[in-house]
């Protein structure tokens, strides 16, 4: 313990390196969980049939809350920002057979990684296509 500076440096290394690894791991897990939830939400909307984008947002918000609770994800469902948009046109009409939509999902980055990057949020975009219905198949 004679050399104060080297002791401090060793202690700093002992704390910082595992801290960095932990942070990378946490970020990786958050990204994976967000992407999984987003893909499931896209399929949920696609299977719903006739639904307006506004109603679809409410539907998948509820779905995501349930998913996070049952699967014990580390995400906080309050902090997730969501939007469903129709592709092509600004109309708010109902999504039906073969219509395309975008599900955007955003989540704040953990403190350390948001400090080192310019974007403060993770944001992911996923496109989806509505499933056909049984009565569409008959016609």
């Amino acid at each position, binding site marked *: *313990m*004679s*050399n104060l500076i080297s*002791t401090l440096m*060793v*202690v700093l*290394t*002992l704390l910082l*390196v*595992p801290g960095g*690894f932990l942070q*990378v*791991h946490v970020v*990786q*897990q958050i*990204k*994976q969980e967000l*992407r*999984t939830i987003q*893909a499931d939400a*896209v399929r949920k909307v*696609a299977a719903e049939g006739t639904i307006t984008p506004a109603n679809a947002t409410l539907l998948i918000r509820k779905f995501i809350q349930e998913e996070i609770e049952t699967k014990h994800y580390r995400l906080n469902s309050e902090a997730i920002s969501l939007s469903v948009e129709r592709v092509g046109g600004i109309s708010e009409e109902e999504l039906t057979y*073969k219509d*395309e939509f975008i599900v955007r999902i955003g989540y704040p980055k953990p403190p350390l990684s948001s400090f080192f990057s310019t974007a403060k949020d993770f944001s992911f*975009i*996923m*496109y*989806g*296509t509505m*499933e*056909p219905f049984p009565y*569409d*198949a008959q016609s």
Partner: protein
Amino acid sequence: MPILLFGLFAMLFLLFPGMMVMDTDAITGKQMEMQRLMDNANHHATFAIVDEENAQGSVELELDEALQRFHQRMFQNGEYTWDGAKYVPGVKSITTSPVFAAFHYVDYLQWEDSHRMVVQYTGSSLQVASFTKMADHGALLEVEVRDQAGNTYSLPPTILTGPCLVAVAMVDDEGLGLAGRHTFPVLSVQAVKR
């Protein structure tokens, strides 16, 4: 001081198991993400039907248009651009190396028979080497990928429910540090939507 030095050594040593855990997590995530991208793109692609055939009660896929829709969706969701033989990753893509892909359309005359499909991976291309009929019934599709080293990856068998677009992708990506490469095939089968 010896305690601190031991601590430093122990930490550096324990980082290796930690990196293995992170690598396992990464490959699982990569595999799931590729499966989701392929399924989503294939779902989008199988809407490209020939309208006249549909009006007459049969169903037929317009393959060129379907593949265009497939590539478009892979770009929108995963930032992959198609260059004729492989998907070139963008900055935000899940892999850093190109993903090879092969497509095959099982049309309405074939889908009720059982088939075995062999896909050959050479390291710089992925191609359907053979598509052989095994039986007149069953609607079973078995896909296997053979690589240049002689390994055979058997993919899970699928029961077809109609004319299908079959897409196989081969991911061959760098892993984390000493953990080795991430090599795995992805299969996506989707029935043509009427």
